[in-house]
């Protein structure tokens, strides 16, 4: 038999290879469409992700200038190409549409066809979602009181439409799974307005909160038992749309119980309200501690108690001679990738005591890395004496 000139049909398939019986033989050949499949890639995945993929709950996300990630409903994975020097012959199942050619009477053994020699495969590495980009996108065009009150000024429309993102736009632009994106929006206190996800500008938030607190006093309501319907009605009368008023309740309060007498009840959270006023006061820069505390306590509504430990992760203090200065430095304004976070932290201060550092790093998450490992990787820990507080500095 002259193998040199023997060209075989491509009717066999993977099932013949995998089902080959002991003491049997088959031929392996190049497929009639060999090499025309540069659009085929292999992706290695955990068995537990197979159902997600087959049920079409998985997308690849990324802009052309970003490394693509694969997102399931809840997680984000980097795609890593792993090459091989082996010859990996890919054999598809037989194409049942193609009937055996009748001229193959001389062939006594089945044939399986190789469609491609795979140069390697993609692997998945779980990564943190790229939520800093979400923060950046939403910060481009915060929703303001001016926009809320100007109902329809068409020449303004165009300007206002820049930096506006619907859910689908965000999913297109932000490398995060749907769940991560949703909790990212929640963490940024974003709200959906006319189909676009927005953050409210500080001034607007301040106005609504002050109006709400004013209404509480006016109507003799309790911070711990705010009737949702009554609050929304009052704020609407004051000129705040229902969805914005609702957003205010979510940002500064928690739902206590579902439906007392047909209406939801809310409790204003003391800490969140107090932190808001501290932030407002410190907007213009550093202040002497005593001045700050006096003004803060004065601003906080009656019935709420401002205490300095509420400001963990929100403010820092520094000594200036005998004075202590306090200034706004919020963890929420810092990047979420550890390298960038520590970079900024060590720019701010060369040395950190653990009690100061902890509020600024406890939210850092790196898949596969514990909090201790993150610290070890990005900081140098020194402890002057055994019972002294450990001090962290840059690596």
């Amino acid at each position, binding site marked *: 038999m002259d193998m040199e000139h023997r060209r075989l049909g491509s009717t066999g398939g993977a099932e013949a290879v995998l089902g080959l019986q002991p003491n049997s033989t088959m031929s392996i050949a190049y497929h009639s469409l*060999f*090499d025309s499949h540069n659009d085929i890639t292999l992706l290695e*995945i955990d068995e537990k992700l197979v159902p997600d993929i087959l049920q079409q709950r998985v*997308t690849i996300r990324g*802009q052309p200038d970003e490394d693509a990630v694969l997102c399931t409903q809840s997680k984000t994975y980097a795609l890593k190409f792993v090459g091989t020097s*082996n010859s990996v012959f*890919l054999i*598809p199942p037989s194409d049942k549409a193609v009937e055996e050619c009748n001229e193959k009477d001389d062939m006594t053994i089945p044939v399986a066809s190789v469609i491609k020699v795979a140069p390697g495969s993609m692997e998945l590495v779980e990564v943190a979602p790229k939520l800093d980009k979400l923060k950046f996108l939403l910060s481009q065009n915060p929703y303001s009181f001016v926009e809320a009150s100007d109902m329809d000024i068409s020449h303004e429309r165009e300007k206002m439409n820049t930096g506006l993102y619907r859910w689908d736009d965000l999913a297109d632009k932000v490398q995060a799974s749907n769940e991560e994106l949703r909790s990212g929006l929640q963490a940024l206190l974003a709200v959906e307005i006319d189909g676009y996800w927005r953050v409210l500008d500080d001034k607007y938030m301040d106005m609504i909160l002050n109006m709400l607190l004013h209404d509480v006093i006016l109507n003799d309501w309790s911070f711990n038992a705010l009737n949702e319907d009554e609050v929304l009605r009052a704020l609407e009368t004051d000129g705040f749309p229902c969805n914005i008023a609702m957003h205010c309740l979510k940002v500064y309060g928690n739902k206590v119980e579902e439906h007392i007498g047909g209406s939801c009840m809310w409790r204003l959270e003391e800490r969140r309200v107090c932190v808001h006023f501290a932030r407002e006061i410190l907007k213009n820069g550093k202040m002497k501690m005593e001045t700050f505390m006096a003004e803060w306590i004065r601003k906080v509504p009656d019935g709420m108690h401002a205490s300095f430990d509420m400001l963990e992760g929100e403010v820092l203090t520094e000594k200036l001679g005998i004075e202590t200065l306090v200034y706004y430095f919020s963890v929420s304004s810092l990047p979420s990738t550890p390298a960038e976070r520590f970079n900024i932290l060590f720019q701010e201060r060369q040395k950190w005591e653990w009690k100061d550092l902890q509020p600024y790093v406890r939210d850092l998450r790196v898949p596969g890395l514990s909090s201790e490992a993150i610290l070890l990787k990005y900081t140098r820990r020194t402890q002057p004496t055994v019972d002294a507080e450990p001090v962290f500095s840059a690596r």
Partner: protein
Amino acid sequence: MQIQVKCSCGEGDCPEWAILELQGTVEAQPSFQNSLQNLQIGILCRQSQENYTFSVGYHELTGTKVKLKKPMLVLKKIKLQNEEEMGERDVNSLRVELDVIGIIRHKILFKTRPKALISKPQPAVKEKVTQPSSTVPN
């Protein structure tokens, strides 16, 4: 940009593909290198329950069927170039989908160095063992 990963095979019905994996590369004779289609690579033989051989040209490899630690999906990129859609929307709307056309759970792996077979006719395809002797006459 989002690329939907789809499986058009129907629920749980994605067909199994197979991999034949061997060390090094397989090289066709120069006269066939540009037209490999339909060309025979070698003969696969299951000699016993466990042992497989793969004869490529003068060489024989021995191997076993192994279950992959993690399955592999065979993805095919599909460009959805709907012209009217292209007209209305910007370049970002050049939509692409990835279709899962197969799943691989097993491969037949030949880990051994090839063993020379004697007195066989000149094959069209050979295993590249040492040097690619491109001077082999047809």
